[in-house]
């Protein structure tokens, strides 16, 4: 995944996809889903810890996105930075799910069942991944989102600031504190 250059492309308006979507190119919707489905799913899975809940979250995010794409004027679609826009949507969907259902319920469902995308990993990585998920689960929300976007999704700070609507330095602080806390949880439990 060439995250860096994609982000740059979007920033300077070189990404041709928004114009294709606005112009009615019939290949554009599939391209949008193919391009972003995996990363949105990974974000949802990290935050929700359950693969079927995560799949539903991604589905809902795309539904919201396409409802908007059906209604926005062409100019507005052309001006979209698609990746950041989709992240804002999935962040909202996930946040609502976490708020709406009790957290305990999600955690109760979480144990390693159904981790489809990681099921073919070696035991060692799988264990480490589950530890990370469990530790992330215990971070305050804003730190958890920041750490997930920075280290699981590999987004640059500037894009995280844009997606979450948080000042750049706050994002850096949240990420640093989140990592500090993760260290305590993962390496220094004592």
């Amino acid at each position: 995944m060439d995250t860096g250059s994609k982000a740059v492309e979007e920033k300077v308006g070189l990404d041709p996809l928004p114009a294709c979507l606005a112009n009615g190119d019939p290949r554009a919707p599939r391209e949008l889903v193919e391009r972003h489905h995996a990363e949105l799913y990974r974000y949802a899975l990290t935050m929700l810890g359950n693969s079927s809940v995560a799949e539903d979250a991604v589905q809902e995010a795309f539904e919201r996105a396409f409802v908007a794409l059906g209604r926005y004027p062409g100019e507005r679609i052309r001006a979209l930075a698609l990746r950041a826009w989709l992240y804002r949507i999935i962040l909202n969907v996930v946040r609502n799910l976490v708020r709406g259902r009790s957290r305990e319920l999600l955690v109760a469902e979480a144990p390693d069942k159904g981790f489809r995308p990681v099921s073919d990993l070696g035991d060692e990585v799988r264990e480490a991944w589950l530890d990370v998920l469990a530790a992330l689960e215990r971070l305050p929300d804003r730190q958890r989102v920041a750490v997930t976007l920075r280290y699981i999704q590999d987004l640059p700070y500037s894009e995280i600031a844009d997606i979450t609507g948080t000042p750049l330095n706050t994002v850096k602080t949240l990420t640093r504190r989140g990592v500090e806390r993760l260290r305590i949880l993962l390496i220094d439990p004592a």
Partner: protein
Amino acid sequence: MNERFHEAQDELLTGLLRTIVARLPVGEEPEWLVERVLSSVVDRFFTVDSPIGRMYVGVGLRGVRFVQRGGSPEDFARSYRERFKRLLVEGTDTPTRNLTEKVATALAGKRVEVSLDLSETTPFQRRVLEVVKSIPRGEVRPYSWVAREVGSPKASRAVGTALANNPVPLLVPCHRVVKNDGRVGNYAFGAGEKARLLKLEGVSLDEIVRTPYIAACTTKIVCYATCRNVGRIHPENRRPFRSVREALIAGYRSCRVCRPVVT
């Protein structure tokens, strides 16, 4: 513990996170996952040949919503989005391919049921389209007949407007509705195309203008000239009429199949 030690540990941790994430398979999206998402968030289109040229057909989950002639796929997708607020992808899935075949069969004149989604039309327009859908190939009806059938006998003009905005031409055969005097009337693709389509379907508009109604002197029943019952009247028993009223005065009654409007 000192700060440097913590920093080193944080680096170790972020390194660990990156290693784990790097080993999570992201790669290719399974096709079926993408299809599953797309199936509920966008509509599909396909093209099909018709007597008036290549037609684009837009399909939602509940059936055909939009039929338009010519242009590029982009043009069609744009007018579809304006009208239905949905994006389109080319339908290459099996259900869409089956539907393509069905629509092609219907346009070739066979009687097959194609499910239509007319949810974006007004209740009046929907009633009009339902009635017009029932006009068989080879027959025509006047606007006043459609108006009477939908329960608004004075609304011939509104019927005209409803048909002018028919979202699914050919599938709802609005070309089979003609002026009350048998002249061809308007058509979204031009009056010439309408006359040509009707001629292909075996309707002679010239004859209808001359004799809009035909009665059988044996059964004393009067029909629209294109009613299927007319074909069963022996030529020497046929009686032409200019109006239904004339026929009624002469002692005939209206056909129960084509139900001509008394004017």
